[in-house]
């Protein structure tokens, strides 16, 4: 997927919306997250398939009923497995030379895209977090990228990523390189009322404005 900091997979061109934009990183959550979900579904199905026929035999009902109900449980289990797998597969963290983005597609259910334009913010911190013995063993953790944007959430989090140390260092280097091209302040400025003009249209009026502007 990655070579010298740039992604080999060029199929993600959908997200390269700006001229000269290059893909740096595309990551999914660690496979353990998916295995955990699938394991829970399979365990629940197994319990249901074991208990219900016993209950039916106890009440001496039609013998067709346990077969039919078991089939229904299997249909539900298959659909849940497919949904869990697809949700995991279509949950991506994408870093390009112009933006950092989280795309989460759950077909028929939700469609979420969180994006931070890197030429509008400054990255102040990249924190890597791995807590717990299980996460240490399977090398899974979180990466928190802190930006200086007081008008919105300050942290962009990559949750349950494989190789968080390696990716965190790669991300830090990439963001650091991008900062050299950052000139001037973001496109928001302080008005006489103390509210930034750019964000006023989107966010509530009582948000702290960014410094370095003009009225």
């Amino acid at each position, binding site marked *: 997927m990655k070579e010298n900091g740039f992604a080999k*997979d060029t*199929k*993600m*061109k*959908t997200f390269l919306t700006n001229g000269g934009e290059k893909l740096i990183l595309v990551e999914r959550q660690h496979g353990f997250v998916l295995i955990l979900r699938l394991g829970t579904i399979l365990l629940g199905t197994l319990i249901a398939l074991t208990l219900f026929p016993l209950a039916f035999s106890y009440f001496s*009902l*039609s013998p*067709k*009923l346990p*077969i*039919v109900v078991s*089939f*229904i449980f*299997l*249909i539900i289990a*298959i*659909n849940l*497995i*497919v*949904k869990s*797998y*697809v949700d995991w*597969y*279509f949950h*991506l963290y994408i870093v390009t030379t112009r933006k950092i983005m989280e*795309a989460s*597609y759950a*077909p*028929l259910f939700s469609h979420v895209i969180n994006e931070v334009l890197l030429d509008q913010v400054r990255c102040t911190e990249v924190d890597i977090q791995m807590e717990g013995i299980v996460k240490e063993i399977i090398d899974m953790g979180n990466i928190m990228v802190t930006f200086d944007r007081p008008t919105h959430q300050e942290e962009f989090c990559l949750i349950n990523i494989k190789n968080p140390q390696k990716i965190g260092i790669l991300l830090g280097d990439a963001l650091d390189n991008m900062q050299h091209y950052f000139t001037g302040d973001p496109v928001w400025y302080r008005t006489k009322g103390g509210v930034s003009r750019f964000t006023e249209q989107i966010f509530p009026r009582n948000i702290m404005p960014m410094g370095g502007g003009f009225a």
Partner: protein
Amino acid sequence: MIKDLNIALYVSAIFIFIVGLMYALFYKMQVHKAERELGTALPKPLQFFLFLSIAAPIAFSLLVIFFWLQEILVDNFGATSYNR
């Protein structure tokens, strides 16, 4: 009571067939849409499970139809190998 249960079984089978199949088909459409938007194809195991989610309601309906036909055969021809 068994007869009522059989009726409930057949009605629920129709319901599950319609709802299950519609859900699976709409879901597959949305998955293909997401594949196009992201520019990435699903892996083969997942494609198999997606096909299974469409085939399962159909198989379920066939099973219920089989049971229904079995009931008809027993009622009309009184098969002795089947104990009620």
